């Protein structure tokens, strides 16, 4: 029993360290990659090749004065950043990040929790993230924040529907809500090939869910200054920031798990190598985020809504119908 507990603790520490490091270094990668797109250099002076930049940013955020404006609703104002940060990191728990490794003759599954309703859990937890946006926008008592939070909550809720339906078709095909079994189901054929429409819908919704370009209108800095976190400073702002990046990592990990066969590589995929495959796939999606950010203009609120409800949702429903018909017949 003790052994199991120790192993679990080690796994938890490892996964969360990896996630937070990924978030921190994602900011650096983003700045360097986008800089490349824009014929700039990005941060290069902090440490070799700017590698210490995330550390410097973190230290800066921690030591900044934590301003709480007078006109805010204090309690809610304090809770909102936590509500952004915690759910974003929690959903990583059920995602299998490798096959299994053997240490000291003991086989360890590379997933924190082999939950039989993993997909549901991810959706439940990420949905809580909307609260942070509503609460922060409302409690800040500022017009820009309010507009940003209205936009954002509407966007997240409406895109979650299509996203859910896209995942439903994957669940139909693989016959399980357990992410490990979904990965196992893709041993021969990745779902990206059997469910291409669902993949595209999931991808689009994933980007919209995380409020990234071209769906970044909740924090459209040219319109709303910074959107729902306009009034936040220091580490409270940092939590929103980490939350956003953790969400990106989670959605990318989900996309890799649901559609790209998770940790299974084309060749050998056992032990450490399976983790490597997983990391590569997640990074591919993260790179796509940056690529889009450097290229596209931003949607307008009404266009975003009509795109979500009038195009993505019918398409997702159709996809589910067709998939279930096919599954039923076969």
């Amino acid at each position, binding site marked *: 029993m003790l052994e199991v507990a120790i192993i679990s603790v080690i796994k938890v520490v490892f996964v969360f360290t990896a996630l937070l490091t990924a978030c921190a270094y994602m900011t650096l990668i983003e700045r360097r990659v*986008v800089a490349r*797109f*824009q*014929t*700039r250099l990005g941060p290069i002076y902090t440490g070799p090749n700017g590698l210490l930049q995330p550390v410097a940013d973190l230290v800066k955020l921690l030591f900044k004065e934590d301003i709480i404006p007078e006109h805010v609703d204090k309690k809610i104002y304090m809770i909102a950043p936590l509500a952004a940060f915690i759910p974003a990191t929690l959903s990583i728990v059920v995602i299998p990040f490798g096959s299994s490794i053997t240490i000291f003759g003991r086989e360890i599954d590379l997933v924190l929790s082999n939950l039989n309703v993993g997909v549901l859990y991810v959706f439940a937890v990420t949905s809580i993230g909307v609260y942070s946006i509503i609460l922060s926008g409302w409690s800040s008592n500022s*017009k*820009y924040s309010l*507009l940003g939070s209205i*936009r954002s909550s509407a966007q997240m809720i409406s895109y979650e529907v299509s996203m859910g339906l896209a995942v439903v078709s994957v669940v139909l095909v693989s016959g399980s809500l357990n992410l490990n079994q979904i990965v196992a189901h893709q041993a021969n054929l990745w779902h990206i090939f059997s469910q291409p429409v669902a993949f595209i819908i999931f991808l689009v919704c994933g980007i919209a869910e995380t409020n990234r*370009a*071209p769906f*970044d*209108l909740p924090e*459209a*800095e*040219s*319109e709303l*200054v910074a959107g729902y976190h306009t009034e936040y400073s220091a580490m409270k702002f940092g939590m929103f920031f980490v939350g956003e990046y953790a969400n990106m990592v989670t959605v990318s990990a989900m996309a890799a798990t649901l559609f790209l066969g998770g940790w299974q590589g084309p060749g050998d995929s056992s032990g450490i190598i399976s983790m490597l495959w997983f990391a590569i796939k997640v990074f591919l999606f993260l790179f796509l985020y940056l690529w889009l*950010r*450097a*290229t*596209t*203009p*931003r*949607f*307008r*609120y*009404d*266009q975003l809504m009509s795109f979500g409800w009038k195009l993505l949702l019918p398409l997702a429903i159709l996809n589910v119908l067709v998939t279930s018909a096919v599954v039923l017949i076969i």
Partner: protein
Amino acid sequence: MKTKTMTLNMGPQHPATHGVLRVKLDLDGERVLEAYPVIGYLHTGIEKTAEAKLYHKVVPLTDRMDYLAPMSNNLGYCLAVEKLLDMEIPPKAQWARVCLAELTRINSHLVWVGTHALDIGAMSMALYGFRERENIVHIYELVSGQRMMSSYFRIGGLSKDLPENFNEEVRKVLDILPSRIREYEDLLTNNRIWRNRTIGVGKLSKKEALKSSITGPILRASGVKHDLRKAIPYSSYDKFDFDIPTRTGGDVFSRYEVRVEEMYQSIKIAQQAIDGMPEGDWAANAPGVVSPPKEKVLNEMEALIFHFKIVTEGFHPPKGETYVGIESPKGEIGFYIVSDGSPKPHRMRVRPPSFINLSSLNKLCKGGFLSDVIANIGSVDIVLGEVDR
């Protein structure tokens, strides 16, 4: 149920108002009911200051109005004073002025396309626009030593001769530009999101545009083929071959198309200017008005006296008043100068294109979305330095 509208102050400190413009918005949700531009946050008193300066010394002031198109402002002012003095400008100076004024137009439009796209969310465009602008700023530096506030055009011609490698350097820039502008078009013109954001947004009909005395690309995007370079040719523009691009949409996208097309036309004009650059003097032979060249000032007694007189006392233009309008990148910039015979202008009034174009903002924004306000401000292409002279 009674609903209340929300008043939102956009600016004066706001990332997308291009300086210190403040727009007071009445919002119903995301719908804009009214948009009042509030100006005056960058008031510099340039018109008033000009009254206390010798005619020569007003030139650097004009740089600072529309700081993205310094050469156009210089040109407008110099032409006005030259008209007052009834001066003849040598062809080389005229050709050089045309070439640099067109580069200025490209410069201004590059910054415009970058910032406008940035406002709409295409972030990289801003960097690309500034990258190409750097080449043109380099030309400014080459001719005048200054990157932005060049003050290169002087009353009677240029401040000094063109550098020897001027033609080569300009040709280098002109060779790069078309392919780069085509890159922008690849990124934006057929981009679905860009088209959705701009087509049909901020409509301005031909009639309304004429009624509010809108000029420049906005007027041409509303379907009026009016360009002072063709209508009242100045500085030998009649000797150049170019087209005036027009569109009939009158929306943000049409304005975008007109400006992009104008950049190609400006490249064409600048090309012609350097190809046919005449030999000869770079400033009119007008002792007492045009300062002699530096070598002469250092070596000749008479030249030194003239130089001294011009710097300390200035010159006395005849009594009277004059108005000259030119086609700046933003529209018609006009200089109205009243002379009372003293070496300082009695009154200088500038017809600022940005200010007059900005007055249409409410018409453009009404009924649109909050996001459209940003697109509209961008498409009007204002420089606050010129709005609040």
